[in-house]
C-alpha cells in the first residue's frame, strides 16, 4: 500500500493566540479508513477542511499522492467531501435522484450506475422524494451517494453520524466499510463517537488542538485518549505560555492532581 496523504507539521490559527492546530503530522495509506476523534473545538473539522482544500494552509505541508495541494487537486485525486448535514440547504425542490446526479457535475451519470448506487444505499424507494422531506439519516445517505457517484479515490466526511441513533450510526459506518472494501477508496471521517470509530476505522487520529496521536486502532488505548482528551482546558492554558508549544516539566491537571509530564 502506498501513502496517499501526508500531512507535515501543519499549524493553523483563526486569530492571534488561538492556535487550533499545532505541528500536526500524519500519513494515510491508500484503502484505509481513518477516524479523527477529539473533543469539541479540538480542530477536527478545521483539519478536515484544510485537507479538503476549503481552508488555505497557513503553516506546514499537505501532500496528496506525492503532490502538493494545487488548484485542480480535487479533480486529479477524485476527492469527494461530505459536509455536515445541517449545512446543506434543502429549500429547493430537488429529488433524491437529481441531487445525486448533481454530484457528478459536469459529467453525466450512467443510469445503471445510479440505480446500483441507490440500491446499495437503500434509496431506491426514495429516489423521487424531495430532499426536504427526508429524515436526517436518509439525507445523510443521499449526501453519501452524491459523493460516491464521482467514484472517488478519497472520501472525506464531516461528522456523518451526527444526530443519528446508535443503530443508525452503526448502519452508516458499516456501509462505509462496505464501500471502502468494494471501491478501495481511502476514507477520512470526523466523528465524536469513540466506540464507533474504534469499531469501524482502521486507523485513528486523536486530536485536541496542540496534542495529537495517530496510529493503527489496535494501539489506541485509554491512556492515549486521556492524554489527548483530559487536559483540554488545563493544558491549553499551560501550553499557551510556552513559546515552542511544548511542556516538558511536570504539571498538574484535574486527572493528575499530583502532576505529570506531557510532551
Amino acid at each position, binding site marked *: 500500500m502506498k501513502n496517499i496523504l501526508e500531512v507535515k507539521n501543519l499549524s493553523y490559527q483563526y486569530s492571534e493566540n488561538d492556535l487550533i492546530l499545532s505541528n500536526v503530522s500524519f500519513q494515510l495509506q491508500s484503502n484505509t479508513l481513518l477516524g479523527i476523534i477529539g473533543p469539541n473545538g479540538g480542530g477536527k473539522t478545521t483539519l478536515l477542511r484544510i485537507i479538503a482544500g*476549503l481552508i488555505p494552509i497557513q503553516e506546514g505541508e499537505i501532500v496528496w499522492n506525492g503532490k502538493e495541494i494545487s488548484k485542480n487537486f*480535487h479533480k486529479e485525486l477524485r476527492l*469527494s*467531501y461530505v459536509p455536515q448535514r445541517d449545512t446543506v440547504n434543502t429549500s429547493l*425542490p430537488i*429529488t433524491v435522484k437529481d441531487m445525486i446526479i448533481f454530484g457528478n457535475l459536469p459529467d453525466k451519470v450512467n443510469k445503471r450506475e445510479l440505480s446500483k448506487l441507490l440500491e446499495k444505499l437503500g434509496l431506491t424507494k426514495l429516489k423521487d422524494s*424531495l430532499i426536504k422531506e427526508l429524515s436526517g439519516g436518509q439525507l445523510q445517505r443521499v449526501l453519501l451517494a452524491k459523493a460516491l457517484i464521482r467514484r472517488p479515490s478519497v472520501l472525506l466526511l464531516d461528522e456523518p453520524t451526527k444526530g443519528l441513533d446508535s443503530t443508525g450510526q452503526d448502519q452508516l459506518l458499516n456501509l462505509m466499510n462496505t464501500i471502502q472494501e468494494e471501491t478501495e477508496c481511502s476514507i477520512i471521517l470526523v466523528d465524536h463517537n469513540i466506540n464507533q470509530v474504534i469499531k469501524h476505522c482502521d486507523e485513528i487520529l486523536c486530536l485536541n488542538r496542540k496534542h495529537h496521536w495517530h496510529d493503527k486502532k489496535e494501539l489506541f488505548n485509554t491512556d492515549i485518549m486521556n492524554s489527548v482528551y483530559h487536559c483540554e482546558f488545563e493544558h491549553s492554558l499551560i501550553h499557551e505560555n510556552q513559546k515552542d508549544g511544548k511542556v516538558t516539566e511536570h504539571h498538574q491537571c484535574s486527572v493528575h492532581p499530583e502532576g505529570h509530564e506531557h510532551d
Partner: protein
Amino acid sequence: MSFFTDFIEFDFLLYSLFGVILISILSGMLSPLVISKRLAFMGSALSHSTLLSISISLCFFTVNQPLPLFLSNTLIVILMVSGLATFTYREKIPTDSLIGIFLSISMALGIIILSLYSKEKVDLTSLLFGNILLMTKVDLVILSLLLILVFFCLWIPRAKWVYLIQDEEGALIQGINLKFYHYLFYILLGITVTASIKLMGTVVVNTLLLVPGVVALKVSRNLKSMISISILFSLFFSVLGLMLGNSFNLPGGATISVTLFIGMILFINLFPWTIKFFKSL
C-alpha cells in the same frame, strides 16, 4: 370593457403593460433563487439602495434621458452591489446585518445627495411605488435585453446555480467558481432592480422578488415546475394587479403588490385542491 381596451387605446398604458410583463418574468426567474439563497432582505436592501444611485444619477441627467439615466444608475448599482458582494462572500458574521447597514446608509446618503445636488425634484412616493406614466420605448428595450441576459445567465449554468445553493462547499470542491457566481447573482439582481424601479418602485420590486419565489418553493415538486410556477404566478398576478388598478383608478404599483399577496394566499391554499382535481379527471 375598459379593463382591457384602455391598454390598446392609450400608448402609456400599453407600454406599462409590456413593462409589467417583462419585469414580472424577470423577477419570476430570480425570485426562487433569492428565497432559497436566503437573501430576501437583500432584495429589499437593493431596491431601497437605488435611491442613492438615482440621486447621484439625477445630479447629471434628467428623468427625460432614460438611457443615460439607466446606464449611470446601473454602473453605480454594480459598484455598490460588488462592494456588498465582497463583504458578504463566505462571511461568518450574519450577512443580514451587513445588508441592513447597506440599506440604511445608502438610503440616507441618497436623501442627502437628492436634497443637495439633484437637478430636479423627485417624487419619493413614485420611487416607492413606481409610476406607470414614466414608461418609454427605451425602457422596454432595456428590459427586453436584460430579460435575455438574465435568462442566459441563469439557464445555461442552471445545474451549477442549484449546486451552489444547496451545498456551497461541495460546489467549491467540484471546481465550480463560487466567487464568480456570488458576484454574478448580486449584479443580476442589482441591474434587474435598477431597470424595474421606474415602473414598479422599491416596494413593488421587493414584493415581486419575494412572493413568486415563496409560492414556487412552497408548491413545486421539481426545479422545472418551480421556475414555471414562479414566472407564471408573477406574470398573471402582476398583469391582473395593473389592470385592476387601472379599472378602479387605484395606484398601479400598490395594487400589483396587494394582488400578488392575495394571489399568494389563494394559490398556496388552493394549489393542493387543484392538483387533486386534475388528477381525479
